[in-house]
């Protein structure tokens, strides 16, 4: 029960953070596979079943731009942050810093 509860809360906590991480990582152009590896190398492993639908959602929201391009004789879909995405990422990072600072103060104040 506790393990399941923790897992649900952990996923909930990760969900918002993952969006920030993906947007931040896509300041540099990536295709899905390299993006996933870059996130994993940064310590935020994400399975493809979560990543690709998220990329599509962020693109639909106008935060990402994508294009199919040939690389090494293979067609790949490259993603990058859109101008709107850059603005939103800046705001999200400010918000995240604020939340992080608040939580640290709350935890240390106990």
């Amino acid at each position, binding site marked *: 029960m506790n393990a399941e509860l923790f897992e649900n809360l952990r996923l909930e906590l990760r969900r918002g953070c993952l969006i920030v991480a993906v947007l931040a990582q896509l300041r540099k152009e990536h*295709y*899905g*596979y390299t993006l996933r590896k870059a996130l994993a190398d940064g310590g935020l492993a994400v399975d*493809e*079943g*979560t990543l*690709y*639908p998220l990329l*599509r959602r962020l693109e639909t929201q106008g935060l990402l731009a994508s294009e*199919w391009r040939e690389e090494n004789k*293979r*067609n*790949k*879909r490259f993603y990058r942050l859109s101008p709107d995405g850059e603005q939103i990422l800046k705001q999200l990072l400010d918000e995240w810093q604020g939340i992080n600072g608040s939580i640290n103060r709350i935890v240390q104040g106990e």
Partner: protein
Amino acid sequence: MELLDRYLNAVRFWLPNAQQEDIIAELGEDIRLQVEETEASLGQKLNDDDLAAILRRRGHPMLMAGRYVPQRSLIGPVLYPAYLVVMKILVLWILVPIFVLIVAPVTIATTANPTLASIQTLWNLAMAAVFSVGVVTVVFAILERRPIHELEKWDPLKLPRVPKMTAAQELSLKAPGPTTRVNAIAELVFGVITTGVWIQAIRYRAGFDLNTVHITPAHIWTIVYWPIFAICLAGVPLGWTGLVWPSGSRLRAVIRFGIDAVTLGVIGVLAGAGSWLKLTSATISMTDLATATHWTDVGMKITLASAAIITLIDAIREVRRFLGYKP
């Protein structure tokens, strides 16, 4: 990579048409890259079992496709508890008693093969339950999709007042609480559905056929038609009152007591009739028809007695609620 093509094809089946090609191309490329990387690290080609293991980790094609489509629900978490309450009342308190106490006796007593008739009755009950579940689901799905702008125009100043409790009531913890959202929605929807069903019932006042038996409702049903209609319809304003004014427990208690009183009156009038359905048939013997009529009457008596007891208990609860006690 025939196995990969089969997997991608299976995923494609569950995807929306407009996005199929795009998603499949990207997913296929991602899996191919994973396969190539694994092969490079192992220094050998992957066989079908290895590829199957990779695909298994990716997930069932339907689940994989499901991640790409937005999550949608027919009935949301706010209405779902009320949906379950209405469903339980409709199936367990109405359909099952009608079939067990009225339909089954007529069907079984007028047939040469009671086993087959029992199975047929159970089947008809299952079909009626499926139909009822469908109707209730549609009603709740419509409610779920009510125009959201109506809710955006709300005014905090119009929110219902919290009732003041006396010190004695606060200490005793016996005071009735406000109407629950589930009860209010259940009353509202149940009122709409039962009123609709009762309006349809007028089509059968001249009689209806059940297998080879023609069933004619007694004249008493014509007398009580409009009172029963009013009882069904009363659930709509009652539920609505509960939603917009949940703290109005005493007013609700008065209204519900009034509905209970009318219901008891209707039950009394029905009980006084003594006979409720007339069975006729060209192919069934008078003895079998008499047996069927007898069991139908027994079923009606049990139904009326049960309804009277339940209504009486509810009336007592409403009196207690009106007097300020937890029912």
